[in-house]
């Protein structure tokens, strides 16, 4: 499994907190893992991702690849970590391609990999469509294509699966897996528990506190699910979905 520690951790969050939204959370992710962040609405998932991405100020410390965040210049941060918001609000009609190309800003706008990223999320045909005329799922894929074009070694995505159809959910999971196989580290929040079983590590937040972290089979016990989500879990036969 990719979860074994090889040298420096990709992400280390130590005693980070945000008043009213996140209690003291300590968390570290080894390089190359595909990690999922789960928890009920309001449990602090988005806040934790923003803190980890250096977008929200918090006491405690954040380290990327062993380096304290405050020592990394803003432009370099853009090359080291990429954060994808939960929802895209596009006020202006930039073309899909130009939004994806923004992922290369920190590399001097070299446009490397922009067209490949568009193709990877099925957006090549919409490349010249204004982003403010897309559906919710298409917008989400634009943000993911921008993340792929950006290609930073640490990727933090806020509910990337939320608005996608079943086919694109599987596509995005496969993209995420592909990224970690190339040595990138991924942490993304999700509500789809079945998808959670495909990941290396599951981090569970509950009421702003870290409840558990580890491989899904160990973490997602019926007791924990009952405790955190108030749902009953039982094993049974059902359909299993995968890409053809």
């Amino acid at each position, binding site marked *: 499994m990719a979860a074994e520690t090889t040298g420096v951790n990709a992400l280390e969050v130590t005693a980070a907190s945000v008043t009213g939204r996140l209690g003291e959370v300590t968390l570290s992710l080894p390089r190359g893992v595909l990690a999922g962040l789960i928890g009920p609405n309001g449990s602090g998932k988005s806040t934790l991702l923003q803190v980890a991405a250096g977008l929200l100020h918090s006491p405690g410390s954040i380290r990327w690849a062993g380096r304290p965040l405050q020592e990394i210049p803003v432009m370099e941060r853009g090359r080291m970590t990429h954060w994808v918001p939960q929802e895209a*609000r596009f006020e202006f009609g*930039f073309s899909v391609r130009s939004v994806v190309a923004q992922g290369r800003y920190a590399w001097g706008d070299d446009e490397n990999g922009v067209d490949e990223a568009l193709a990877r999320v099925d957006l090549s045909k919409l490349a010249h469509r204004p982003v403010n005329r897309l559906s919710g799922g298409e917008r989400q894929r634009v943000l993911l294509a921008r993340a792929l074009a950006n290609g930073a070694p640490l990727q933090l995505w806020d509910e990337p699966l939320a608005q996608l159809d079943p086919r694109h959910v599987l596509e995005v999971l496969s993209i995420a897996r592909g990224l970690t196989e190339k040595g990138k580290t991924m942490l993304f929040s999700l509500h789809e528990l079945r998808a959670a079983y495909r990941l290396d590590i599951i981090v569970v937040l509950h009421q702003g506190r870290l409840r558990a972290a580890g491989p899904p089979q160990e973490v997602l016990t019926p007791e924990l699910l009952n405790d955190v989500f108030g749902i009953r879990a039982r094993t049974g036969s059902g359909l299993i979905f995968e890409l053809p």
Partner: protein
Amino acid sequence: MTPPWVARIALPAALVLLAALALASLAIGDLRLGPARIWAGLLHQDELASTVLWQIRLPRLVVAMLVGSALAASGLVMQAYFRNSLASPGLLGVSSGGAAGAVVVIGAGWTSYSLMVLPAAAILGALIATGAVLILARHGASTERLLLAGVALNALLGAVTSYVLSNFTLTYERNAQILFWLMGGLEDRTWEHVLMALPIVLASVVLWPLGRPMDLLSLGAQEAQSLGVDVRRLRRWMLALATVLTALATAVAGTVGFVGLIVPHLFRLLIGPEHRRLVPLSLVGGAAFVLACDLLGRSAGGLRLGIVTSLVGGPFFLWLLRRQA
């Protein structure tokens, strides 16, 4: 989507238009001047033409262009800052802030101390107005909130101006000066005014490289930060530039409405939302728009600039609101 050739020829086309308008602006007036006489006048070979051009028309032309560039660029920056294509210096009350600052120092009779008192007061007034807008409507605020904040601020600053006006009713000259600022105009502009407005050139140069990061910011502050933009610094620069540009324009021409709304909007419709293109286009297009409005006013028997831009801009704004709804 606009075809790429439109985007490519937009700037050259705007420059040609600006040159043509500038030429017309030198030619048209009580004394009509043909190209040959303009040339002779500029080279001081024709005394009458030379006086008309160097004393009256050239300073007016330069002030008009600087004012237009400043207001259009200021509107563009505000729209990116607030992520709202209806933001502009006039609607948000920043112009009124500049005018109130100017009116206060004119009313107090301080403008005679130094040439720089007036623009400094306008900048101060505009800064106060910008600060108030920021408090009333945080970035990314809805159109309603932003416009209502502007309405409140315009009313408040209007009251300041009226107070000054009502307190100096006896001095005709100051009152006339104040009225000039309230209506916005380019009459009797001299090289002193050009000098006052010259920092606009500097501000435009500073604005130039901010186009690309403004693209990223206009789609969301946190996204921009994550992509490598120093958002706090960028925002400080944008606010400072938008405010100073508006204030300087107001200091030399009074409140001239709608330029900052119309010009960036038209170009966004024409060539898309990319600020790398919109920054130079707004600078050139703003100058051309104000020149055109000034020519229109002059040929309509001396309608003041502020009146013409409002007559053109008001209906355009209503059309935009309808289009957005």
